[in-house]
């Protein structure tokens, strides 16, 4: 394993998580969340959880994002916080 890469990914994960919950535009937040899920999936694959990683990439980053975007498009993009 490449430790530096892992560290970098973890730091990136936290940044994405914080960004996802602070973005004022919900579409942006949702896309950031998708990115977060993808990074998470990569970490899992790297931790030998190949099946879980792929599921997360498909379900967490894929389906969930679609659901979020559908919900946001039927409500409003703007968030107060």
């Amino acid at each position, binding site marked *: 394993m490449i*430790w530096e890469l*892992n*560290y970098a990914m*973890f730091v990136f*994960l*936290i940044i994405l*998580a*914080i960004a*996802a*919950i602070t973005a004022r535009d*919900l579409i942006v*937040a*949702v896309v950031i*969340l998708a990115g*977060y*899920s993808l990074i*998470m999936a990569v*970490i*899992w694959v790297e*931790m*030998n*959880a*190949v*099946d*879980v990683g792929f*599921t*997360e990439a498909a*379900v*967490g980053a894929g*389906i*969930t994002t679609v*659901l*979020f975007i*559908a*919900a*946001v498009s*039927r*409500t*409003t993009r703007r*968030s*107060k*916080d």
Partner: protein
Amino acid sequence: MIESLIESLLLRYNYVMVVVLMLIGIYAIIAKSNLIKKIIGLNIFQTAILLFYISMADVVGGTAPIIEEGATDLVYVNPLPHTLMLTAIVVGVCTTAVGLALTVRIYENYGTIHEDEIPGVEA
């Protein structure tokens, strides 16, 4: 020797990560008034727990639990948590879907997705 120390540090590092991500998730759930933000927080919270499971299943020096012909000396990581996590991911998506559906209906009824703007809702 030194390698295993780093390994265990890495494992601890994973746990620190789990805690940080969980806290971020819980913070969003509690502090955000936007209903979609709360669900995003819930997602982060849930993936943090999954991360915990995957980390604990990751045996030192192990390899993915895929059986290879003839290779009998391979150390596989524990496959049970992985199967459990597949279930947990599906459960998480269901929760998200229900939550978002509720959010949409709240918007249709109240015209807002901010909890503090919904009239007549006390703590």
